[in-house]
């Protein structure tokens, strides 16, 4: 008989539904053949429907544990009659869903050349598990000898969403804030009760709201193992973790270690509460999803889930049975296999419907367009399926359009009319212009318009371009203007990790300095970056902490650092209050001006009869931009009558950018006669608070015809 401790007693509805009536009994558990769909463990009246797929397994055993127990409570072999095709399914009745953990044993061939790595000694995590135990509290050392380290759990889907649903904010109105759950509040200065958790982020929503961003993009929040490849730094002894989490253990389960209630198994509720509260504040949630590889690594890695269930299906394998490594992380998920495609679709549908997630950013998304042998597909079925899926119909889909195998698809990612891209060229061109490189003015003009050179040729608008200058990969913005070279010694890899193509500039001193001239100059460059980013067409994305000058002390690859290299120091709010004020006002400026947020590419023509093109280009002479290779200046004017493709009326906006080392006198074009005078909204050369003015409070420009633009500074005027 099964233990009384896991039998929940009589289920009232059991007798009422003959399709949920036990027909078998094994090891004291009452059972009946299950339903193949949906995969995973699903609560049904009186019991749980377990369903799992494997193409090549001979047998399958359901292994049940009491929560946290080392030894299994029971092992129930699926009777052969319970298998339909390649799917084993079984209903088990009378389980105490709160106290059960489950896994599978799969027996099948171990023939590595043929791609099979079954091992019936392993207890495997269900790829469709909705919650995972075993890493319940961040940083708590696991039992390394455990036979069942990642433990499937059952989840109730009874959350009280009230009237919440995904917000469906038009993508052109987003300002994205890329952030890491733990980093956001783990620093002691955060002042929250449960640092580093979903609950803590919820406490900080007022800060996000005040910053003005309309969307948070969360670095991986589903179950990963911070102890994967963990080690101590050979010199400092510092513990180094899999901190960022770009290595998936399970695609459906939120990371328990990010929940204050993780030790209570309530991470699902805590995360849903966070999403619900963000939505109440009109802030969307985008998840960074990593479907390019898993935490099982290559043939030397552990077997805890996919490898033991159906290695040949889930992974791209060489003809010799080794793992293709287009991810740079040991293995590559076989995304265009129909089975794997289904799990990706099921997963995203689940997050969209059950967690009300507003969109997804796909890590190394170029991999999703490779065939099972690694060749790029011209019409990748997974990307098409995601683009046209009905549940995901209003979700934002954003690709990191490259991979570690050398496939670079910025501008050519198969978009199917839906996909946006992290625009790596925006980042590169902006960085070069900001530090005064020559030959960048032409590229800058493209980037400011939403990169029509990349996206216009196939009918994609500026909304295809996620504009960013910094992201989690690489320098923070403060470091971008404080270091010429990376300084990754803290990672324990002899400074060999991380990119070397940073396009950064230390402004005369490598790293920290007490020279006020250098400090102020760096801050001016940061303000320049914020300004151009916020007046560019496309979707701006900023990195957590860049609004207050967060430093990683020159480390451009902090993937393993669970310390203040990643943690946001909230003391910077005071220390760099001027930067924070500027960032808030710059976001506010963007949101106040629809002329900056067109859905379609600018035409460089006047189609509204205003006498001015929607965008016009200028330089030291009005109407005469200097496009020469040596030019480091550019100005443009947006005609307010063309805002939102002429559907709304906005003020005229004029932006002058000078990345030359000399002051330049810009001749200012006159706005339309009925558009009034020029007012100074932004001058990054000025000290705070005269560097930026709130919308409606801008001072009138004295000389309406000219503006002396200081070296390495940006000026924004509005006409009304």
């Amino acid at each position, binding site marked *: 008989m099964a233990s009384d401790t896991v039998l*929940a*007693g009589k289920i009232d509805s059991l007798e009422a539904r003959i399709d949920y009536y036990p027909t078998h009994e094994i090891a004291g558990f009452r059972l009946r053949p299950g339903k193949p769909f949906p995969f995973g463990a699903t609560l049904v009246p009186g019991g749980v429907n377990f369903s799992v797929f494997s193409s090549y397994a001979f047998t399958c055993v359901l292994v049940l544990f009491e929560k946290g127990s080392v030894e299994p409570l029971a092992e129930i072999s699926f009777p052969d009659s319970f298998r339909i095709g390649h799917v084993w399914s079984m209903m088990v009745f009378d389980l*105490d869903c*709160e*106290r059960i953990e489950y896994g599978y044993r799969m027996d099948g061939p171990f023939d590595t050349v043929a791609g099979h790595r079954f091992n019936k000694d392993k207890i495997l995590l269900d790829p469709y598990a909705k919650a995972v135990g075993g890493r319940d509290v961040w940083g708590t050392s696991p039992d390394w000898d455990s036979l069942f380290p990642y433990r499937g759990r059952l989840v*109730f889907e*009874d*959350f*009280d969403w*009230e009237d919440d649903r995904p917000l469906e904010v038009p993508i052109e109105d987003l300002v994205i804030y890329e952030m890491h759950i733990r980093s956001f509040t783990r620093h002691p200065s955060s002042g929250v*009760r*449960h640092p580093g*958790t979903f*609950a803590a982020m*919820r406490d900080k929503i007022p800060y996000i709201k005040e910053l003005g961003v309309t969307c948070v993009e969360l670095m991986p929040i589903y179950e990963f193992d911070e102890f994967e490849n963990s080690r101590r730094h050979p010199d400092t002894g510092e513990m180094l973790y899999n901190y960022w989490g770009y290595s998936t253990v399970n695609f459906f389960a939120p990371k328990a270690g990010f*929940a*204050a*209630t993780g030790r*209570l*198994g*309530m991470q699902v*509720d*805590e995360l*849903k*509460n*966070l999403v*619900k*509260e963000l939505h109440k504040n009109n802030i969307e949630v985008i998840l960074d999803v990593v479907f390019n590889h898993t935490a099982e690594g290559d043939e030397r890695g552990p077997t805890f889930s996919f490898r033991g269930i159906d290695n040949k299906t889930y992974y791209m394998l060489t003809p010799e049975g080794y793992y293709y490594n287009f991810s740079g992380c040991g293995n590559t998920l076989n995304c265009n296999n129909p089975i794997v495609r289904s799990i990706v679709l099921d997963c995203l549908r689940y997050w969209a419907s059950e967690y009300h997630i507003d969109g997804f950013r796909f890590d190394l998304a170029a991999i999703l367009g490779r065939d099972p042998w690694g060749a790029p597909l011209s019409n990748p079925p997974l990307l098409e399926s995601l683009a046209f899926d009905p549940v995901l119909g209003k979700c934002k889909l954003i690709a990191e359009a490259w991979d570690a195998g050398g496939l670079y698809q910025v501008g050519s990612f198969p978009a199917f009319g839906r996909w946006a891209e992290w625009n790596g060229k925006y980042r590169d061109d902006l960085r070069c212009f900001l530090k005064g490189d020559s030959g960048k003015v032409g590229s800058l003009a493209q980037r400011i318009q939403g990169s029509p050179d990349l996206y216009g040729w196939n009918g994609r608008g500026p909304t295809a371009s996620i504009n960013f200058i910094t992201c989690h990969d690489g320098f923070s913005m403060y470091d971008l203007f404080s270091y010429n070279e990376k300084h990754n010694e803290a990672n324990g890899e002899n400074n060999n990790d991380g990119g070397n193509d940073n396009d950064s500039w230390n402004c005369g001193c490598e790293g920290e300095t007490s020279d006020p001239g250098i400090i102020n100059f760096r801050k001016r460059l940061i303000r320049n970056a914020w300004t151009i980013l916020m007046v560019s067409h496309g979707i701006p994305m900023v990195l957590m902490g860049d609004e207050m000058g967060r430093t990683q002390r020159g480390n451009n690859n902090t993937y393993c650092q669970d310390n203040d290299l990643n943690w946001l120091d909230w003391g910077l709010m005071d220390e760099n209050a001027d930067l924070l004020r500027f960032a808030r006002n710059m976001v506010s400026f963007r949101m106040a001006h629809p002329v900056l947020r067109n859905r379609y590419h600018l035409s460089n023509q006047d189609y509204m009869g205003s006498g001015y093109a929607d965008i016009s280009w200028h330089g030291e002479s009005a109407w005469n931009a200097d496009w020469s290779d040596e030019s480091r200046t550019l100005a443009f004017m947006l005609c307010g009558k063309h805002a939102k493709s002429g559907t709304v009326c906005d003020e005229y906006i004029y932006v002058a950018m000078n990345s030359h080392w000399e002051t330049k006198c810009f001749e200012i074009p006159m706005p339309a006669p009925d558009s009034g005078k020029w007012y100074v909204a932004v001058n990054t050369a000025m000290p705070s608070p005269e560097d930026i003015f709130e919308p409606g409070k801008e001072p009138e420009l004295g000389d309406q015809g000219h503006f002396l633009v200081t070296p390495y500074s940006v000026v924004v005027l509005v006409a009304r």
Partner: protein
Amino acid sequence: MAFDAQLAFKEKVAKITLTGSLDASSAPRFKEVIEEAALQSPTKLVLLMDSLEFLASAGLRVLIFAKQKMGATVDIYVVGSQGPVLGTLEMSGFHHSVYIQDTYADA
């Protein structure tokens, strides 16, 4: 302490006094009491938790059930919760869905 849930009505206010540990084994009893209270269509549900020592996720599930069972027009007051019980309500975010009070008179 063994779990107990006592239901009392005063006009249209349902008052449930909870004692002991509200965990997986006791949650069904609590759910029964919630359903019993719902039958009389209360205008307000008051949960007295002064003597509730422990709240597991199963218990939280019943609170969620109570909120949905009673409907949006019935305010739920959680009275006298403290220590780990209050901590669980706060960490999971449930305290934003109900009114947390120190005393019944406040409710």
